[in-house]
């Protein structure tokens, strides 16, 4: 299954965040508990950690890009070689993640 990594809407609607960097790169396997990316809000640094395993397949933003809650930041797949849908498809389930805020 293709899963999407979504910037959490719980951050609020009127907020923007800036991608600091990807911890994983496209094609890399992600184990449960692995950090995937780090972004910055106006006050905090947020480390996003996968709560389930998969493979990081597509990153839709680069370091320094601005994102909003609800944006799909990446696609992951359960199996590393699953075919990907066309860009723009609202692919699959939302990946379970945890957020470490500092």
């Amino acid at each position, binding site marked *: 299954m293709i899963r999407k990594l979504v910037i959490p809407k719980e951050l*609020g609607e*009127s*907020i*923007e965040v*800036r991608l600091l960097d990807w911890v994983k790169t496209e094609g890399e396997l992600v184990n449960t508990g692995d950090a995937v990316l780090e972004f910055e*809000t*106006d*006050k905090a640094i947020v480390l996003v950690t996968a709560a389930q395993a998969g493979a990081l397949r597509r990153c839709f933003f680069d370091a320094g890009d*601005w994102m909003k809650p609800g944006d799909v930041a990446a696609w992951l797949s359960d199996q590393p070689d699953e075919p990907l849908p066309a860009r723009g498809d609202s692919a699959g389930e939302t990946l379970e993640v945890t957020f470490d805020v500092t």
Partner: protein
Amino acid sequence: MPRLFFREAIARAIGEEMDRDPRVILMGQDIAAHGGSYAETRGLFERFGAARVRNTPVAEAVTVGMAAGAAAAGLRPLAFITYVDFLMLGLDPLVNYAAKLRFKSAGQLTAPMVVKATAGAKGQGPTHAQSLDSWFMNVPGLTVLAPSTAGDAYGLLKSAMRASDPVVYIDHKRLFPLGGIVPETEELIPVGSAAVRREGRHVTLVAHSYMSVVSLDAAKHLAAEGIESDVIDLRSLWPIDWDTLAASCRRTGHALFIEEGQEVCGVGTELAFGLQERVAGLRVARLGARRAPVSASPVLEAHMIPDAKRIAQCARDLLRRHGSVPTEQR
């Protein structure tokens, strides 16, 4: 042009002004090693040192009083007040000393200082979330500035820090989580210049600070119904850019004044009166917070502060009352 967080635009403006003028000092709660309550002084303590970036105790009267004295003695202090509500404690030195100093001394003494405060409702309740902007407009000798974008925060704060008399500069809490374009090279925004954020022919929406953002949203709703709005962001509450406001009002004939503070003796009331003196036949309406303290309950807070829906309804009512709804909408 770079896109920065609101706080980064502020830090950049302050850093540039401190580089430029050694008389600039900062005073406020948690502004030194902690980097500011909104992270807006991050890096400045490390860059300019403890003599120029000074933590103060929770004692706003002392902070503003020391800033006024330092300004009169030749420095250019920027005093931080975490919540504008607590500037009430500093009003005596600000109003009775700093604002009057040039007048009382026949120009022999001045107080070139900035009080930078943060206002607005974002869940903090009755004593940490007020918008008191019109209070400061009432004081002769004070300049009052309130940006709504990161770029304006940068340009207005720089102008404030070069002013020859005291300035009250007010940020809104809801602006901090937003990013915005800030000019690559130094650009000051002159005091007393409003910005036209959107152009339309039917009604003028006048707002400042975060209500400019909300008014732009309301203008989109109105446009979908065929009502085109001029949206004017005041930026400077005193002095007022009467020329920009009057030019828009002459074109539209209808003005709605929006603010997060109280309507009574509010910014909109002053502007409506001043514009009716300047623009014959201008039809006006005003919209501010409902007459109650700001609530800590998110539901009640949202109920009392203007939102895009209420602004759009007020604009519709204003046009309807005077038979001015665009014909295609009647």
